[in-house]
């Protein structure tokens, strides 16, 4: 019995240590960020390309199908109340406030977060980070910060694209196939969707972008320098990202609502 408590205590302490280390890492990254943004813009733009632009395919396809299924389910439910015209409102609100930011963040963690963690982890495993230190180049500034900024900038943009594509997916199903009036689909959302709702989604996507990106670079940077260590870092990135995104989602909603 006593043994169990000791184990639990160590697990808790371990968790707190990792958590604290991550906060400090984030602070360190944020401290370097403004300068990097102006002096090393080319590095960041390269990251935005490989993280953001290269994730477009998965975001576009998933967004389209999420929108289409929302259109189908929404129509099916709303038609039972004879309120098909409300389809646009239902789809727009659920996408902008919840589904868009959360699903994009989860997809992003799987597509780009793993890539970030693996890339930096492999640099650690092959001693590239140590080599930089030997050349008096700070690997955090040269590698970690640009990767982090690339991720944090890309995710809000990807979320906006996801939302737009999903809205069109719902439009295709609702209007073209199910026969909801096209004018009603767009005009019904206007009185009910506030700018604040769109902004809630934007705030969420910015927070998720920072959270997922810092998790990925942290796991990669602190990976064990072995093949197994890199694989563990990528797995942890996806798992912890998913948990953190959903917890943060609840917290932001509770604050903003």
């Amino acid at each position, binding site marked *: 019995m006593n043994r169990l408590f000791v184990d639990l205590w160590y697990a808790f302490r371990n968790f707190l240590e990792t958590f604290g280390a991550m906060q400090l890492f984030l602070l360190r990254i944020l401290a370097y960020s403004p300068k990097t943004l102006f002096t090393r813009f080319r590095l960041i733009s390269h990251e935005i390309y490989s993280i953001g632009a290269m994730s477009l395919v998965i975001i576009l396809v998933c967004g389209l199908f999420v929108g289409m299924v929302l259109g189908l389910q929404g129509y099916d439910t709303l038609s039972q109340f004879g309120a098909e015209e409300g389809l646009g409102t239902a789809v727009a609100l659920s996408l902008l406030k919840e589904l868009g930011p959360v699903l994009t963040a989860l997809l992003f963690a799987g597509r780009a977060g793993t890539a970030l963690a693996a890339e930096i982890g492999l640099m650690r495993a092959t001693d590239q980070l140590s080599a930089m230190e030997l050349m008096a180049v700070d690997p955090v500034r040269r590698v970690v910060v640009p990767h982090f900024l690339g991720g944090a900038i890309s995710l809000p943009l990807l979320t906006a694209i996801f939302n737009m594509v999903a809205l069109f997916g719902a439009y295709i199903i609702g209007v073209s196939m199910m026969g909801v009036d096209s004018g009603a689909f767009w005009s019904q959302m206007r009185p009910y*969707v506030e700018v604040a709702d769109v902004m809630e989604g934007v705030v969420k996507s910015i927070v998720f972008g920072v959270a997922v990106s810092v998790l990925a670079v942290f796991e990669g940077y602190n990976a064990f320098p072995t093949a197994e260590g890199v694989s563990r870092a990528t797995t942890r990135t996806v798992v912890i990202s998913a948990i953190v995104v959903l917890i943060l989602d609840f917290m932001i909603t509770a604050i903003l609502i």
Partner: protein
Amino acid sequence: MKQTRVVEFGTGMFVLLGFASLFFLILKTTDVQSDIRGETYEITARFENVGDLKLRAPVTMAGVTIGRVTAISFDSERLEALVTMRIAEKFDKIPSDTDASILTAGLIGGQYIGLSPGFSEEYLADNSEIQITHSALVLENLIGKFLVKLGEGG
């Protein structure tokens, strides 16, 4: 060299597409577009009951939105609701004996203020108050009246 240009082109396109989407979403799904822009003037009206009138609810005349509700407060002296609204400056020929009623859009729609014009030669100006108002219809009161009528055998 060619590789870098592809990367730069892709990054630029991606960022542009992202911001364009955000812009599109705000314009298309919300009603910022139909917001009252430019110069406005403020008028007030007192209602016995505002129902569930909300901030930013439209103020319409002949069905066209000409302003928005900017504040709803309680006048503790006259025990009435004080509604403040902003009307676009270009609609400055509203007769001073215009009356305001709180109406409902559709069966389950939100509530808005409908102005119906009077015949006065004088016009509403900044800070003027609409004197004739009709409260929101509250369903329970309606049913109550109906039941009273029924009880009277009328």
